[in-house]
């Protein structure tokens, strides 16, 4: 069953990469129509849903035994990221108003998407744990929070690097920026809570509760800061992004998606092994076995 889910996820990923990336490459560089008659909207939808559903399936199907799968995913993610960076840095034309500074968007935007996806995954794992009580989901929650925190931190760094030459300041109190910072601190607090609680049951339950509470806060923080102050660019969508920018953006997006999935799988495996160790009965001492110590 789980084996089939894994291959279904790979098939979905292949469909997503084909619709999101290969067709565009064919259009622009091979002068070939690879679209199979699908309109742009349908292709975007397949790329988006295929990627996300594959991510969920890969995480659900993972039983923490197989190490070669996450490693293969990480290698594939790194390759996509390299292709995306190459196209973003050397092939795509500079943007009209911002010039070369805009090139950071090819990693910045996917990082933003997947930081939110990772924390959404943490929220979903918390809900599943709270209702089911399966420790596997506790391990997945820990992994998703950690990966989400890393991505949110990277997001703040990339944002600052971009903001200094563009806005003239490292930091701005814009809704998305401020929400990311608040998210980062909220989930860092949950990771700290996990470090301070020794009892595995309490640790799992409390961090699930804290994750739910922190996640519910995200839209409230966003709208409160939005009322307070606003300056950020409007989000772009396929209609406002011109075609030469699609390839680097999408290749980087698939790269970060695969890397994130691999990291969550690897990190969840570590958490699950630690948990197994903690839940195991203490080893018998020599005296109990009957040896003379």
């Amino acid at each position: 069953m789980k084996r089939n889910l894994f291959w279904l996820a790979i098939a979905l990923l292949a469909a997503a990469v084909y619709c999101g990336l290969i067709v565009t490459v064919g259009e622009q560089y091979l002068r070939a129509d690879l679209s199979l008659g699908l309109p742009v909207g349908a292709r975007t939808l397949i790329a988006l849903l295929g990627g996300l559903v594959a991510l969920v399936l890969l995480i659900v199907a993972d039983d923490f035994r197989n190490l070669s799968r996450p490693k293969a995913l990480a290698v594939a993610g790194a390759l996509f990221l390299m292709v995306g960076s190459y196209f973003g840095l050397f092939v795509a034309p500079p943007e009209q108003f911002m010039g070369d500074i805009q090139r950071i968007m090819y990693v910045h935007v996917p990082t933003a998407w997947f930081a939110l996806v990772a924390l959404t995954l943490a929220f979903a794992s918390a809900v599943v744990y709270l209702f089911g009580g399966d420790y596997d989901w506790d391990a997945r929650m820990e992994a998703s929070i950690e990966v989400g925190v890393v991505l949110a931190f990277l997001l703040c760094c990339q944002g600052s690097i971009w903001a200094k030459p563009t806005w003239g300041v490292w930091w701005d109190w814009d809704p998305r920026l401020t929400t990311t910072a608040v998210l980062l601190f909220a989930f860092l607090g949950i990771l700290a809570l996990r470090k301070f609680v020794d009892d595995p049951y309490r640790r799992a339950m409390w961090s699930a509760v804290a994750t739910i509470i922190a996640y519910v806060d995200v839209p409230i923080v966003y709208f409160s800061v939005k009322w307070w102050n606003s300056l950020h660019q409007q989000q772009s969508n396929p209609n406002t992004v011109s075609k030469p920018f699609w390839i680097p953006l999408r290749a980087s997006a698939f790269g970060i998606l695969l890397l994130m999935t691999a990291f969550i799988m690897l990190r969840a495996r570590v958490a699950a092994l630690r948990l197994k160790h903690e839940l195991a009965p203490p080893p018998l001492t020599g005296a109990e076995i009957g040896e003379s110590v």
Partner: protein
Amino acid sequence: MLIAALRKELLLQWRSRAQFMAVFVFGAAALLLFSFAVGPVAEMLRQFSAGFLWLGLLLSSTLTLAESFHAEMENRALEGLLLLPANPRALYYGKAIANWLQLVLLGIALVPVMVVLYDAGTTRIGPLIGVIALGAAGLSAPGTLYAAMTAQVRSKQTLLPLLLFPLIVPALLASVKATSLIILGDPMNQVTAWIVLLVAFDAIYWSLCGLLFSRVVEE
């Protein structure tokens, strides 16, 4: 049951009123220290007075909230309370309401200090107390839930603010804005929007934390 839990909390707080005084002095000292960050410029102090009031109240609240499960931790009293044939939710709401009342009192007690130090007087006492009550409710609901967790672990004094501060950003923002508009004047009538935000935050967290509390204390 809720009434009984609330009575127990209020009795406990009344008997430890020396602690309330200590927290009040801490808050007032914080307000005094904030003014050194700005310097003796009356106009700027007045402008930032609402922010300072809420930061003072927030810092003091971590002291009262961290201590609020102190009695339950002694002699495993929490387990005894949970053995009672009653919903743990009543226990939570009793404690959250008691914490809220204490924070409202603390906030109202800090207002004169703010008025004296920052020359931030206002005649609109009613709305000011209303905003303090709503803002304090925003601190107390998640604060009580997190206190129930952190009271049972090592280094609770560090962990509670770490969890609470990012969470209450919207409540803090709305409270500061609303208080500031009340003190400095509100020509555009923006204060209503901030109060709506505060009410929404309070409604979400008073219901969500009540739902989740039994999971936090169950064995």
